[in-house]
């Protein structure tokens, strides 16, 4: 039996890599830390990351000359200039340290094998002599949108290996983890967060956890796309929901949704980009390698947004393989050979065998682009501190920190989890050291009553009404068909209207089961309204953004418009308000001027202002949108112009 109210110094919501790495930092500083997790931490979705973690170590021949500036260039170009460039810079500089730290914690990174190695590069098998003096250092593989081989990896289970190493450290430090527990409401007094109300997924009981600092690290919200996502069933975005429900914490760039080119058809299980990095091809129904025509330079290794659009277009042109589940294309790994597939891509080999009964050494893999990653999330400053709410932090996919802008590069998010975890964890520890628990217990108990009341309300509803699962399925269909890879104003308007209608349905929905305990139907029903609200702001944000940038592609506005849209969408929506409020802040100080990404379209609408004009007062304007002060002044880590010798 849990008390109605408990306390801790630091409350971490989410037991994946970002949350746990943050917890380690705070616990190592001597603070009392509690992690809430929907599942045992090792089952968090971080474990499903396959291909790698980007860090410019430059250890193999194809990585020679790599450095943090090249990584910075790739990341900002990949983001289609939507990223906060200071955050991208911090990330690129810290990623090598974070990757090496994971080696220290026990991750069995694949290592450089000095001497002759055989690789497949742009369709050719080549032999490369790896330097003996680099033998045994961390190896890299190629990934999309990068100038060098940079992704560090442990076969095709990089996330699994990293999560187990970090969780082992959490256990070593004796950090309290409450698994099967869901945060359902933030405790706050209007401008200061004091923890969260949690619901136990064993018993259904609610309890309040008051804390000096609260960190949301709940991952992405891919499940608003229903079954059309590579994400786990637990990626329902509830961290973003409880932040948005405050009405004052904005979510950033919710319309920036990544579609991964290679989800296994029809189950949408992820097949890593490492397959194409290691030399895999995309083929259409005529077994034609269409990406060579579409992107002669990067071929299959253009950024994910670009490859997904070419794939979708190819299928629209009737070149997909038709099935009762819809069309798909092929991923061809046969030429990599069984030895490579059963070692460096072992998990892919197993997925193909187990879920579609094929051997990728001899057969083609059916793939289709599917929702994969949420670039948007809780808008935070470079310390991970949420806008407008002291004591609330966010890290990892749940946050819009914002190093990904409108398209994230493969391998950058897994690295972000540990880099952000280290940085934000340190800031949280400093914040907590300088504060004391100063909240009235009535505030916490009132929040608990509100949350418990919501559950009671669901159980009291009777009579006929729509089913929560039917509403969820309709949401997924709307999101994938109208807020997908190609978007246009008409369909986005329909999507907004449809989601709006589903929100009304949600208020009339009735549970079929009233069993005591966690009640799986009730547990889902409690999330449904929040998911619909996320879907609504995603569709609405996409409708309002009348340009194409990164993963947000408008057929009716096909150009990137740096004159009007070089900004970040912010949306606030109080739990009881009828409509969300949108506003736009500068992306941040610009160091690398907007230009061509090196793949995709080279056409765009140029900035009207000069860079100097754009940068003038940029931080003051962000502060007007709620950005709180950082420990170091904004811009302190820009390393302005450091990239110039590499372009």
């Amino acid at each position, binding site marked *: 039996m849990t008390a109605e109210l408990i306390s801790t110094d630091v409350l971490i919501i989410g037991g994946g890599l970002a949350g746990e790495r943050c917890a380690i930092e705070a616990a190592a500083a001597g603070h009392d830390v509690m992690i809430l997790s929907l*599942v045992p931490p090792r089952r968090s979705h971080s474990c499903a990351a396959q291909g790698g973690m980007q860090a410019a170590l430059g250890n193999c021949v194809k990585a020679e000359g790599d450095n943090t500036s090249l990584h910075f260039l790739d990341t900002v170009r990949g983001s289609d200039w939507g990223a906060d460039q200071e955050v991208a810079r911090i990330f690129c500089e810290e990623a090598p340290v974070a990757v090496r730290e994971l080696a220290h914690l*026990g991750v069995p990174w694949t290592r450089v094998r000095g001497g002759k190695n055989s690789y497949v590069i742009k369709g050719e098998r080549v032999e490369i002599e790896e330097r003996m003096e680099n033998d045994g*250092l961390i190896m890299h593989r190629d990934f999309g949108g990068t100038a060098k081989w940079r992704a560090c990896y442990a076969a095709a*289970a990089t996330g699994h290996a990293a999560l187990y190493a970090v969780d082992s450290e959490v256990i070593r430090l004796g950090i309290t983890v409450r698994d099967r527990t869901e945060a359902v409401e933030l405790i706050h007094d209007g401008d200061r967060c004091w923890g969260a109300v949690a619901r136990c997924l064993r*018993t259904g009981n609610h309890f309040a956890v008051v804390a000096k600092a609260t960190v949301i690290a709940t991952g992405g919200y891919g499940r608003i796309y229903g079954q059309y996502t590579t994400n*786990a069933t637990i990626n329902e975005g509830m961290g973003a929901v409880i932040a948005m429900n405050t009405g004052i914490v904005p979510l950033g760039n919710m319309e920036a949704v990544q579609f991964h080119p290679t989800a296994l058809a029809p189950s949408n299980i992820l097949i890593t980009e490492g397959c194409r990095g290691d030399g895999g091809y995309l083929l259409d129904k005529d077994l034609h390698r269409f990406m060579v025509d579409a992107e002669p330079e990067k071929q299959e290794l253009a950024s994910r947004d670009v490859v997904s659009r070419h794939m979708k277009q190819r299928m629209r042109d009737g070149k997909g393989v038709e099935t*009762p589940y819809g069309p798909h294309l092929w991923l061809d790994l046969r030429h990599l050979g069984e030895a490579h597939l059963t070692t460096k891509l072992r998990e892919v080999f197993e997925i193909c065998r187990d879920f*579609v009964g094929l051997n990728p050494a001899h057969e083609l893999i059916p793939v289709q682009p599917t929702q994969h990653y949420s670039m948007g999330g809780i808008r935070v400053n470079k310390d991970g501190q949420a806008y407008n709410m002291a004591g609330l932090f966010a890290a990892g996919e749940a946050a819009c920190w914002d190093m990904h802008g409108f398209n994230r590069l493969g391998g950058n998010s897994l690295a972000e989890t540990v880099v952000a975890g280290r940085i934000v964890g340190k800031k949280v520890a400093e914040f907590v050291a300088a504060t004391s628990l100063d909240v009235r217990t009535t505030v916490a108990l009132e929040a608990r009553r509100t949350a418990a009341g919501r559950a009671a309300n669901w159980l009291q509803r009777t009579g006929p009404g729509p089913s929560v699962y039917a509403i969820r399925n309709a949401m997924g269909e709307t999101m994938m068909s109208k807020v997908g890879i190609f978007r246009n104003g008409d369909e986005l308007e329909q999507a907004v209207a449809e989601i709006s209608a589903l929100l009304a349905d949600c208020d009339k929905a009735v549970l079929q089961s009233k069993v005591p305990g966690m009640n799986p139907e009730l547990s889902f029903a409690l999330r449904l309204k929040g998911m619909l609200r996320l879907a609504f702001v995603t569709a609405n944000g996409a409708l309002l953004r009348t340009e194409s940038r990164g993963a947000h592609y408008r057929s009716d506005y096909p150009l990137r418009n740096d004159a009007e849209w070089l900004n970040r969408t912010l949306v606030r929506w109080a739990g009881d308000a009828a409509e969300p409020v949108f506003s736009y802040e500068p992306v941040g100080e610009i160091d690398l001027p907007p230009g061509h990404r090196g793949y995709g379209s080279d056409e765009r609408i140029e900035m009207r202002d000069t860079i100097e004009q754009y940068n003038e007062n940029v931080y003051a304007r962000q502060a007007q949108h709620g950005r709180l002060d950082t420990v170091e002044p904004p811009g302190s880590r820009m390393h302005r112009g450091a990239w110039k010798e590499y372009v």
Partner: protein
Amino acid sequence: MKTQESATPRRLSFEIFRYNPEDPESVPHMQTYELDEAPYMSLYLALNQIRETQDPSLQFDFACRSAICGSCGMMVNGRPALGCRTLTSDLPDVVRLHPLPVFKLIGDLSVDTGTWFREMVEKSEAWIHTEQPFDPEATEARMDDDLAQAIYEGERCIECGCCVASCGVANVNKDFFGPAGLNRIARFMMDPRDARNDSDWFEVVANADGVFGCIGMMACHDVCPKELPLLEVYAYLRRKSLAAAFAKR
């Protein structure tokens, strides 16, 4: 790609163990549901379909639905397996589902593997033991790629609990490390970054709760969804234990 289309789908019968410990009126029993088979239908799809169309109170666990998170271990016709990657096309018309034994029951097919595995990790201190603090300025310590691959082999365990459920010893001795625990120990034992020596390991593993508790039925080896080479793992642990024992004399 196998094609699985046929004119009339098979009618599947699912007999599922039901018990909700939070409900005073609930008593353990088996309940039967029927479903038409669909192409590529996994137990993940089947159980969700049952919950969403027939019985919303049914409890079970899935997360990644791609056999990497380890959430969905369950007894499928008497044999532990991951529900997500068990295809109905590989099963007979009647599918009997029970929760994994050994672990505490949460409800129906849902069991508490998280607590069991955290205790196992704490007991075996399954983390890198080192006196060296991490040096953020230093290049990573080198490791031969063959060794990295050997460590990775054991690292692949997803702690689904299928081996533990299948283990005759783990079912009667709650202090037994179980196959997954022994595999985890072997993984750290072969890792040169871990400073524990043979004598330290001897204390952990060379006893009846460790590798000498295993009675060699090897169901674990047969049911492991990740096909971990558990037979070799135990041989390695026994060999290392004996070497440490001789060294002690």
